[in-house]
């Protein structure tokens, strides 16, 4: 006669790690760039170049500040896998309505005629998937949130004829991760699967250093070539797992559960974030149009696994495979001055997703993305205002019955992004 053990496995009690998408990279660092579909590493002619191609700030020969924000909203739906014994027949499952704000702020100061100093604040990664309850996937993830903010002092230098520019800078990146899920067990009194605990893992704001370099070359009057590289950064997190028992209404069952829940405790984990490589070309061969094409590579293959170490009960530590793939995205954008004061911009992008079907989960169900953007720019005297509307459609994505957490279905996601920024040239 064995002692009474509930089937709450240790792994079940813990949040799995972060898994967002192309993951969870953001490129919403400036309204003009977003309006051009993110194809901006060759144009790079406003202070957000610190993010897209730092060499671009060498072109800016006036002191300039710019700040803004992107508001991201999601619409999504989960459908159960008809061949899955748990999720079959499930229709619906939505994110809670909320708006992510992605901030950015930049200042550039030219020195002499060749050098420009700059400093930028931006968010290269981030995402939140917060599911509306009751959500049948809450035992995998009910809320997952990763936030980053980077501070980058930058310097760029251009040749006196302006045909070649190079730049670079160190990047100080802070990040925070929050992961929430419920834990369940079969209540032997009722034969029903009930929520018995909530696991809330919240990291501190931890940091790591990276760096960024770029080059911009203008072979002819009409053509520009740009390349930039932002180094991969792995942030090691300290945090705390707060495990809160959820009463089920049955005192005996609750008492047994209480003896088997691990205590709230400090945890450590780490999130590898990939590099960005921009390869870009733009042309003004068509009068009054600037057209740019960028290919952007993220080496998401760094994201092999999530390892969460529990410090009080190390036996409960766990590793979860992710095995993401490197991705390319392709971006095409145009800027067209309509009057002396007004520009209109158009852009489109195709962004391959890095996830294998097994990694598609309520934490993040990424799909190949197709985006279309439209924006306007207004500049008068020292003032610059840019505004962009950007819609992003994720191709329907299925876990194909292979999900690592044994939670299978099809996800549909659409995102809407509005970016606005304000600049001032001294």
């Amino acid at each position, binding site marked *: *006669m*064995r*002692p*009474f*053990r*509930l*089937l*709450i*496995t240790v792994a*079940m009690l813990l949040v799995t790690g972060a898994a967002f998408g192309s993951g969870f990279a953001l490129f919403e660092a400036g309204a003009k760039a977003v309006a051009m579909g993110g194809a901006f590493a060759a144009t790079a002619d406003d202070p957000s170049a610190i993010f897209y191609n730092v060499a671009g700030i060498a072109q800016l020969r006036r002191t300039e500040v710019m700040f803004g924000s992107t508001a991201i909203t999601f619409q999504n739906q989960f459908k*159960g896998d*008809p*061949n*899955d*014994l*748990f*999720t*079959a*027949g*499930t229709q619906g499952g939505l994110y809670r309505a909320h708006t992510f704000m992605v901030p950015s702020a930049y200042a550039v100061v030219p020195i002499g005629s060749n050098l420009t100093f700059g400093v930028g604040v931006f968010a290269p990664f981030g995402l939140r998937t917060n599911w509306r309850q*009751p959500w*049948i996937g809450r*035992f*995998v993830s009910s809320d997952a949130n990763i936030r980053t903010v980077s501070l980058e002092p930058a310097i760029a230098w251009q040749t006196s004829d302006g045909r070649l520019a190079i730049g670079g800078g160190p990047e100080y990146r802070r990040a925070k991760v929050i992961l929430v899920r419920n834990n*369940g*067990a*079969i*209540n*032997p*009194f*009722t*034969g*029903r*699967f*009930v*929520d018995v605990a909530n696991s809330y893992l919240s990291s501190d704001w931890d940091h790591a250093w990276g760096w960024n370099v770029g080059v911009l070359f203008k072979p002819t009057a009409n053509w520009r070539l740009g390349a930039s590289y932002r180094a991969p950064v792995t942030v090691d997190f300290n945090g705390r797992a707060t495990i809160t028992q*959820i009463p*089920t*209404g*049955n005192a*005996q*069952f609750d*008492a*047994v559960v209480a003896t088997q829940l691990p205590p709230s405790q400090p945890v450590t984990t780490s999130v590898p974030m990939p590099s960005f490589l921009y390869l870009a070309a733009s042309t003004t061969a068509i009068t009054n149009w600037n057209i740019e094409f960028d290919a952007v590579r993220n080496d998401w293959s760094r994201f092999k696994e999530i390892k969460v170490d529990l410090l009080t009960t190390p036996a409960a530590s766990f590793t979860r495979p992710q095995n993401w793939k490197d991705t390319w995205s392709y971006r095409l954008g145009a800027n067209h001055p309509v009057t002396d004061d007004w520009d209109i911009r158009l852009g489109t992008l195709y962004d391959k997703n890095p996830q294998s079907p097994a990694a598609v989960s309520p934490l993040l169900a990424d799909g190949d993305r197709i985006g279309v953007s439209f924006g306007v720019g207004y500049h008068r005297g020292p003032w610059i205002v840019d505004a962009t509307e950007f819609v992003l459609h994720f191709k329907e994505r299925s876990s194909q019955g292979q999900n690592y*957490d*044994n*939670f299978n279905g099809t996800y549909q996601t659409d995102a809407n992004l509005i970016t606005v920024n304000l600049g001032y040239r001294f």
Partner: protein
Amino acid sequence: MTRIRTLMLLLIVFVAAPLFAARGSAKFTTFVAIGDSYGAGVESGSLNLNHQPFSWPAVIARQAGVVDFQQPLVSFPGVGNELQLVDIIKFPPTILPAAGMGQPINLNLPRPYNNLSVPGATVGDVITLTGKESATSTARAFAQFVLRGLGTEVDQALVQKPTFIAVWIGGNDALGAVLAGTPAVLTPLDAFKTSYNSMLDKLTAGAPGAGMVVGNIPNNVLALPYLSTVPPVLIDPATRRPVIGPNGQPISLVADLGGGTIGQLPAGSLVLLPASAKIASGYGIPSTLAMIPPFNQLPNVGKPLADSDVLTPAEQAVIKQRVDDFNTVIQQAAQQRDIPVADVKGLFDRVAPGMFVGPIPLSASFITGGFFSLDGFHLTDIGYTLFADEFIKTINNAYGSNVPLAPLTQFLANNIATTSSGLVFLPGMPYEVSAEAAEQMLMFAPRLRRARVVVH
């Protein structure tokens, strides 16, 4: 262009054609089920309407959209009072039958039930019992109010002119021996083969256009908590760990190993769940421990467990072999008639080592496993739902139909207050399994002490 069109056509033909040339079609206009206590939805030693909606035929009917699927419903606490978990804090846990008396609810249905499953029925019973027999066995007692003298399971299925027939029978031909602790009561292979083929002949002749599905039988005797819960070695009630003998090994219990040979149980022996109450009073504990506390407090130390309390490895092997032979019969009989076979054995094999369905952990553990109910061998609502899903998958594969799987999300309680429902329990000694419960478990279906009361 033409070639592409031809290819497309070929593709369509291949995709549309079912992989299995099954007889009839998967139309559920009139759906009937033939079976035993699993088919009836017996759970925790009881047939009652809290669980009958989860009998595997009822789950299939619900998923297939059958409108008027009738079962012989019994009010709570059922025929065979439902075993209730009373105390899991104490060791060992207490399980007692709920008080009260169940009553049939739709005994006067003016037509045969769609679910004709008779608890306790063997393959032979489904073509012979009509409900007119006197209640000398579990199956005969249940037949009185499931079949009501209107004919056999097979006859009553056919008289409804079924469009689809689902059959799972044969469990009692094998598991009866498991529960009795002896292979002696296994149905002989020849008799099984004759009955099974006769049953299918009658069904295919009587309903030539009907779709059909049958299922095989689990052979993993270790998978039943009825057998896996009580270890064959002496446990120290204080530490809950095996008592270690002078040779550094756990001390095997003593039992009648067959034919009156008394000896220590060989490794790999299984002790039946109801024997736990006997062990608690000293049975099976070697006489060498008679003077050693705490065993010196027990009155029956030194007396062996009965042959029927244990299954030795040799007995297990005989049972397993017979089940394998039954499955060969089922496979061949079904194949000859183009009837698909649901892999029930496969389901039990997956549950045995423990598995997850979504976030839900399931195993063959007693009480906590989530798959087997409190009698140790009938299934839970979740278990029967997975059982039904095994049939649905088989039907869809064979017929190209799209009956939706019954998902386990329906068992998420979402934290609505869940209590043991304020039930009053019969007074009784707190064995791990009460004497009454144990008695009920001796048959593959609950004993029908009150059958005659409820039947007319």
